[in-house]
């Protein structure tokens, strides 16, 4: 009887998991295996892949050190900059804003997401291009300012593009915040600033962690924003990959870089999350 129930339960579980598992197998596991195989191969004479077993592609990795370095530097930097802009916004939405308007304000954060990132990034090309802000600056006598195709423009595009992904998790964690804790803190004589740093901030850390991780991971694979706002010069590893597959047709080297990127991302994130959760954990323990 119990065995039969167990079998039934297992079948239900299997049925529930099957679509996602099949999806991941076909679109994640198989491509990853193909990539691994390619990474040890050779570029065919006219481009593409030909079977071989060589470490040559991995030996060539240092030629893309700049792109790796840019990515590993700009992705967390972009995420932190997002955080700096997002936290006050999320705090205002969750804590300060009139609850009657909260839904409208939250929608305002989400609505731009309905337009493609490509279109919104193109808009920035015009705002930052000579006929945009530099033109306005020229009217007040500041000539020949160049904003487009600079690292600053890339960072701006990143913050703009990924801001909602940072605001939402922080907003959610702040909204769940038990107001009685804030009152208790005030009753016990804490000033608003120390209440914020002693109570609000630590309790919203899970949201912060989620936001930072989400944005960092997405940024590590970023291609579009550096391409459009960086003029193809401020180079992420994503751009280097696109070139190897779509221009120089060096599939094995492209695969080797992709495999390395995945490995680096996994390691960096594991270390970062471990440190982050430890910090968050101790702070919460302190409180209790």
């Amino acid at each position, binding site marked *: 009887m119990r065995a039969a129930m167990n079998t039934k339960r297992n079948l239900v579980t299997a049925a529930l998991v099957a679509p996602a598992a099949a999806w991941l197998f076909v679109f994640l596991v198989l491509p990853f295996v193909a990539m691994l195989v390619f990474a040890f191969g050779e570029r065919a004479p006219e481009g593409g892949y030909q079977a071989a077993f060589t470490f040559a592609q991995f030996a060539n990795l240092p030629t893309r050190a700049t792109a790796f370095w840019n990515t590993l530097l700009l992705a967390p930097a972009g995420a932190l900059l997002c955080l700096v802009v997002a936290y006050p916004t999320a705090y205002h939405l969750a804590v300060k804003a009139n609850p009657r308007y909260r839904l409208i304000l939250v929608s305002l954060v989400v609505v731009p997401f309905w337009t493609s990132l490509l279109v919104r990034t193109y808009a920035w090309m015009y705002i930052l291009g000579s006929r945009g802000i530099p033109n306005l600056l020229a009217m007040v006598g500041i000539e020949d300012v160049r904003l487009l195709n600079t690292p600053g423009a890339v960072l701006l595009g990143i913050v703009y593009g990924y801001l909602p992904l940072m605001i939402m998790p922080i907003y959610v964690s702040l909204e769940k915040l038990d107001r009685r804790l804030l009152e208790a803190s005030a009753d016990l004589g804490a000033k608003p600033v120390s209440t914020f740093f002693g109570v609000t901030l630590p309790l919203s850390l899970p949201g912060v962690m989620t936001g930072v991780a989400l944005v960092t991971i997405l940024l590590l694979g970023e291609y579009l924003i550096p391409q459009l706002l960086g003029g*193809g010069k401020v180079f992420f590893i994503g751009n*280097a990959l696109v070139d190897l*597959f*779509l221009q120089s047709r060096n599939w094995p080297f492209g695969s080797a870089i992709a495999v390395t990127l995945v490995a680096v991302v996994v390691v960096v994130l594991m270390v970062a999350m471990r440190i982050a959760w430890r910090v968050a954990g101790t702070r919460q323990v302190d409180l209790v």
Partner: protein
Amino acid sequence: MTKSHRENAPITADRLTDELMRLKRGSVTRRHFLGVTGLGLATAVLARQPGLFNSTAFAEDLGTQMSIATWPNYHDPATFEAFKAATGVAVEVNVFGSNEEMLAKLQAGGTGWDLFVPTNYTISTYAKLGLIDELDLSKLPNYDPSTENPRFTNEGIIDGKTYAVPKNWGTTGIAVNSDKIKKPVTSWKDFFEVAITEADGRAMVHDYQLTTIGNALVSLGYSFNSIKPEELAKAEEVLLKVKPHLYAINSDYQPAMRATDAWMTMCWTNDGAQLNRDMPEIQFVLGKDGGEIWSDFYAIPKSAANKPAGYALLNYLMTPENAVKEHVANGAPTTDSRVLKLLPAEVTSNKIVYPDEAALTPLEFGAAVTLTDPGRAELMARFKAA
């Protein structure tokens, strides 16, 4: 006839250009443009006259959609509108910045292109890799090999088989905004010097190995087509030195030049003619130390989904009357003497479009080997990632 006299009256060349510019600026609709210029009516009439628009392709079902892979700013949008009005086939236009990018897409498969625009030096490789078919010339009655200039068209024919027919020829020169840059730029050597001095932060190179590496080689006195490792290494030094000073690495440089975000760029004839036409301060010069002369072709991928429509559009574009309109709009010189005869004098006398023979002498046609050479491919990717 319910159409008014005004609508049926032939349009002057000036007025056509005016209306075209209005269309481009978006101040009139395409429908207005086709109506007022008579193009809509003309194509509608043409479509019904088998003598004028005779094509066996039209006996077949053309479907309602096709796709072409081409280069930025390389066609008159009105051409595709007129083709759609005549055949009912909507043309989806994909633009690319390099032949390598087109080849990569075709090698990967599943492009969906029914027609594409490869450059002279790539055709032998496409044929060798089996990515394009020999063209069925019976479906292209408007193409006439006897009126084509063989200097520009011979690379479309391999072992007597026609794999591609010519679109137009052109050169790769330098576009300079003379309002911003005072030092004369007359060679690729000048280009790379000015790019790190007077045009610091304002110069563009193509996202294209052939021209970007080729012109760097030329600036050093080497052949545009060199694949010698030691010469490529020198060219890489030039490129890495200039990279921090560049505005962008992009083959679609017209928007940046028009907005004066960029002041100097590697530039193809047709873009040079368009830029100079609209902004006379932008000049187009050929490197006196060398550079590229090229011809672009139309070819049909083996994997094309709608070959009848591909042939129909190709035949449409080969019609001298249509080719003239394309020429006037995009400014690339023709290979076809029938088209040359129909061109207005201001086009044929334009030195950007039809330069003196002497200016062409130092230029080289791209060589097939540069397309597949791993050294050049990797150099370009490395330069961009540096």
